[in-house]
Each structure stands twice: as structure tokens, then as C-alpha cells.
């Protein structure tokens, strides 16, 4: 009798903790503005659909992330969403989920094995090549519109080990090489400010101290673009004479754009990616087929359409 009661107790416990329709989410880093918007987008979609999510923070630790995925598998979730810490360490995650026959969706960061994913796995993100390309072409366009045929710019890079920073910087060079820039663009110098506003302020002020004339700053993200703007304003530079570009369309950047300081940013639909990943995970868990690469498009933001984006991030 005692045993049956205990069994019943265990069954009741399992009923609550086994997460029959639960989805496990492992985020690379909670402490990241963009990923926070993505996470909140996923959370909101989960509440809307009535799906319970268990979101964990891998704290930028590859090993911890793999442990989290194995824990999800062990607790029998119906699907797993991973925002990979290291995009080159994703094969092990794919293998673990495939062995347990649990659907897996990679979100935001492109896994290295994206072309060989099994049928019940998918990748949801924006095509990273687009962001830097859209940004650079628009900066060129605005320089041309300002009546310039030749222009020189500074380039602010994100963390050097980060794929997005490498890609967005390469995009600038690719746009120039492909002749897609409307003006003859020269890069005076390119340095890293590690995505940080504070470091970007210092970097810009250091550049200003050399006195080299320039027409714009192309930054890998908005935080650095804002740092550059703050340094330029502190030095008394007229913001109408320079073109400043960033990526992310953060609230701070949109405000800077409304104030006429920042000229270009690119909106990456973080919440859309989070919601899209969750939708793909739910479909896969029901055995439905999804596109293996779901691209949520980047959108260019300038002073003309900034109002449309104020409530999006």
C-alpha cells in the first residue's frame, strides 16, 4: 500500500516536472541587450501560445551549454532551442538531440553544421551578411547625397573574436570591392571598441586627436556608433557634416537618430527571431516539416522611417 502511494506520488511529481509540452531553451548569454530582446520575444510568444518554456543561461560557456542540452534531453522536453555560445561547437548538440530524437532549433547564430542538419532540426536567424552590407551601402548613399564623390571613413569593429564583427567588417570591404558604394570610399583606420560605448568614445577622441579629415564612421553596432557621436559632439563637430552608421536599431540609437545625430542603422528583428524559433520548435515537435533555414529579414532604418521602429525593440 505504502509502495502504491509512493508510486502515485512519483507519478504526480513526474506529471508536473516532465514538461510534456515544455520546450527547453539555452541562451548563450542573458547579459546581452540584443539576446535579451530575443529571449523576451520568445517568452511572449510562449505565453501567447500557452507553451511552457524553461530558459537557461549558458553564460558564454560552451561546456555549460552542452550540459544544459543534455539535461533538457534527460528531462524529456518536447523540443530544444539553442542560441549557440560557439557556432563551431554545434555538432555535438545536434548529435545529442538527434540520438534522443528530440527536435532542435538553433536561433540567431548560424551553426557550423547548418547544411547537414537532420530533418527535425532547423536554424532561425537573419542573414548576417545583409546587416553590414545594408549599412555600408546606405552610408555611401548618404555621402553621395551630401554631394561627395570621394569620402574617407573610420571603421569601429566589435569584439575581434565575434563572428558578427568579423562579418560586418568584411561586408564593408566587400561593398567597396564590388563597386556597390556610390562614392569612392577610403578607410582611414579600423580598430576595435569591443561593442562598448565607453571604448568607442575613447577611440573616436583618439582618432580626432590626429586631426585627419573624415566624412563618416561605420560601426559594427549601435552602441559604438553612439559612443562615436558622443565623442564628436564633445569635440564640437557638427553632426550634419558626418555620416554615422550602426547596426541593431536599439532604443538609444533610434533616439539618437531622431535627434539628428545618427544617420543609419539596421534593424535585426530580435523578437521576431525568438518567436520564429519557438514556432519552428513547436511545429517540429508535432512532427510537421519546416524550412531548415528560416531567415527573418534585416531592415534598413534611416531618419525617414525611424518612427516605424520605435516600439519594435
Amino acid at each position, binding site marked *: 500500500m505504502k509502495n502504491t502511494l509512493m508510486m502515485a506520488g512519483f507519478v504526480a511529481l513526474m506529471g508536473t516536472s516532465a514538461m510534456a509540452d515544455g520546450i527547453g531553451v539555452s541562451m548563450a548569454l*542573458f547579459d546581452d541587450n540584443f539576446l535579451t530582446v530575443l529571449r*523576451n520575444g520568445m517568452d511572449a510568444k510562449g505565453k501567447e501560445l500557452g507553451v511552457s518554456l524553461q530558459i537557461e543561461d549558458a553564460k558564454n560557456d560552451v561546456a555549460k551549454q552542452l550540459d544544459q542540452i543534455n539535461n533538457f534531453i534527460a528531462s524529456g522536453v518536447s523540443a530544444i532551442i539553442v542560441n549557440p555560445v560557439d557556432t563551431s561547437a554545434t555538432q555535438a548538440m545536434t548529435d545529442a538531440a538527434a540520438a534522443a530524437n528530440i527536435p532542435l532549433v538553433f536561433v540567431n547564430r548560424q551553426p557550423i553544421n547548418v547544411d547537414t542538419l537532420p530533418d527535425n532540426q532547423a536554424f532561425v536567424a537573419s542573414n548576417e551578411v545583409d546587416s553590414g552590407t545594408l549599412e555600408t551601402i546606405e552610408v555611401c548613399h548618404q555621402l553621395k547625397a551630401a554631394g561627395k564623390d570621394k569620402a574617407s571613413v573610420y571603421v569601429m569593429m566589435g569584439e575581434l573574436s565575434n563572428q558578427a564583427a568579423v562579418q560586418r567588417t568584411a561586408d564593408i570591404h566587400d561593398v567597396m570591392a564590388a563597386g556597390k558604394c556610390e562614392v569612392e570610399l577610403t578607410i582611414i583606420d579600423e580598430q576595435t571598441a569591443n561593442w562598448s560605448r*565607453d571604448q568607442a568614445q*575613447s577611440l573616436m*577622441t583618439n582618432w580626432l*586627436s590626429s586631426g585627419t579629415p573624415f566624412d563618416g564612421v561605420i560601426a559594427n553596432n549601435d552602441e559604438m556608433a553612439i559612443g562615436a557621436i558622443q565623442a564628436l559632439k*564633445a569635440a564640437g563637430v557638427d553632426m550634419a557634416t558626418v555620416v554615422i552608421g550602426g547596426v541593431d536599431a536599439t*532604443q538609444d540609437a533610434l533616439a539618437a537618430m531622431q535627434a539628428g545625430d545618427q544617420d543609419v542603422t539596421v534593424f535585426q528583428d530580435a523578437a521576431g527571431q525568438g518567436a520564429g524559433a519557438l514556432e519552428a520548435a513547436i511545429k517540429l515537435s508535432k512532427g510537421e516539416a519546416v524550412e531548415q533555414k528560416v531567415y527573418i529579414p534585416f531592415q534598413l532604418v534611416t531618419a525617414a522611417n525611424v518612427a516605424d521602429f*520605435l516600439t519594435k525593440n
Partner: protein
Amino acid sequence: MSTSAHGLGGLKYDPTKKARPPELNVFLALVIIVVAFEVLGRLLMGESFLFNTRENVSGLFNTARLSIIILQVATVGIIALGVTQVIITGGIDLSSGSIVGASAMVAMSFAQTAIVNGNPNPKAIFGDWAMDLPVILPILIGLSVGILTGLINGALIAYTKIPPFIATLGMMVSARGFARWWSNGNPVSFPTQGYNAIGSGMNPVIIFVGLAVLIHLLMTYTKYGKHSYAIGSNEQATRMSGINVDRHKVLVYVIASALASVAAVVVSSKGQTAQANMGVMYELDAIAMAVIGGVSLQGGRGSIIGTVIGALIFGVIISGFTFLKLDAYYQEMVKGAIIVGAVVLDQYRQQGRARV
């Protein structure tokens, strides 16, 4: 080390025993690095590092570069002042960077403005009651975060006797966790004009220099300073001579954390934003500034003047690299080598003096 540097028990810090102040060596290192950049600049770039070579600007020096050299290290420099007095007592503080993050988040939440470009503040943390408060409130609230974390650090170290490395490592992790929890990782932005003014222009430098003078006076002319050196040189002897070592240690860590909070207010005001990852690695930069400035990690030796020069060396290196357009990939490698090199030189000099 401790006995040879300060004589019997190291209780009395006697300046007359020194043939040449150690700060002079650090200053010479600074001069050598500046000259190196000047020469390299003239050879490689055809430009001057320090002097003004632009026709459209008047003056002998490139004042823009001189000011950024100090400005870019002022925030971490403020932390380094606190770290210096911690290291002098023989301790270490790994939590200052995280305390910057935590204090900045809390302070900025009470420094927000209600209307941004005619719209309601999109990053509002609290309701309307916390908007457009007088600037002194966020400053005091930010400082209280530092004082509280400092009390915890100090009490753990003084009364549970766990090593400072572990106590402040714990605080480093917890305070960063707190900073992330505060707004679920969201940045806090759009402060009031009054709050913006704190870190605008050269104000961070003024605050840094003001605090440096204050802490320097504290360390050289007061009982507080004498006791700090005494504890770092020989804690047992200090305890025996009737000084309340435990209470003193709590005070040391409170001052260090409070200075980290000041740095948090300055950096969040300067950037007009507070983010959970603010101040990452600041503690190590601050320790490096102190060590380059001749502060001994064994305790009992070092000075605020040395740390300030150490901070300047940092600033010169950052600006010099950008000036030379050194590839970003090389910069950190070279920076690390310079930090270690400076300490190796200092060690060599110490051994030389011990033999005399």
C-alpha cells in the same frame, strides 16, 4: 620582501631611508614610452605624438591627444585608487568591476528622464515617481550600493578570515548577477541633463585627480594611511601593537567599493547609459595600473602617486597604439607584454636595492 623594504616590522614608513623614490622609476618608464611613441610616430607616420603639427590648430602640444590620454583612464583610475589602498594592506579586490555594473544599473534607474524626444522614456525602470529626480539622489543611491558591498567584502575578510581573493571573487560573481537581475539584462538609458553633466567633458579627470589627491593625503598624513601600510607589512605585529586590524580592514574595503561606485556614476553618466556588463575587466585593469605604478602585491609598499602614473602609462599605451594605427589584433598582445615587462623591471630594481 616586507622586512627588507621597511625595516623592523615595517611599522614606521620612513621616507628618508629611500635613496630615490620608486615613483621616479615609474615616471621614467612613462617618459620612455612617450618618447618611444614620439620617435615611432615621426619615423613611421611622419606625425608627432605629443606636439601639434596641424596648421588649423594653435598651440605647442596636441591638447586633444593629451586630454584623451587622461580621460580614457580616469574611470578605471578612480577604481585603481581604491584598489591601491587594498593592495597596500596586503589584500586584493576582484569585485570592483562588478560593483561598477551593479552601482551603475541602480544609480541610473533613479536618474532617468520622463520624456525622450517627445516620447515617454522607452527604457523606464520605475514609474513616474522615479523620473527627473534631483541629481544628488542617484549619486547617493549608487554610492550606497558600493558602501553596502564594501561592508560585506570587509566583514567577510575581517571576521570570517577567508582570503580576500575568495571573498571578493564571490562578490565579483554576485554583484554581476545582481546587475543582470536588476532589469532582466536590459540596458537603462536616457538620464536627466543634470546626471549627464557629471561625466561630460573633462569632469571625469577632475573627479579622478580630486579623489587621487584626497586618497594620497589620507595614505600619507593620517593614522588611516599609517595603519594600512603597517597591516600590509606585518599584520601580526600591527595587531599586537593594539591596532584594531579587523575594523580597519572593513573600512579599507568600504572605501574601495565606494570608489568603484563613484566610477560607476562617472562612466554611466559619460555614456548616458547603464548596462549589466559595464565594468567587466575593470578590476584587472585597476590592479594592473597599481602594480605598474610600483604597488607591491605582497602589501606594505606603494603609493597613490605611483598608481596615478601607472594609469597614465595605460592611457599613453592605448592612445599610442591608435596613433600608430597598430592592427587591432596586435594591441592586446603588446599591452599584456608591457604590463609584465613593467613589473619585471620593478622587481629587478627592487632586488638591486636590496643588495645595497
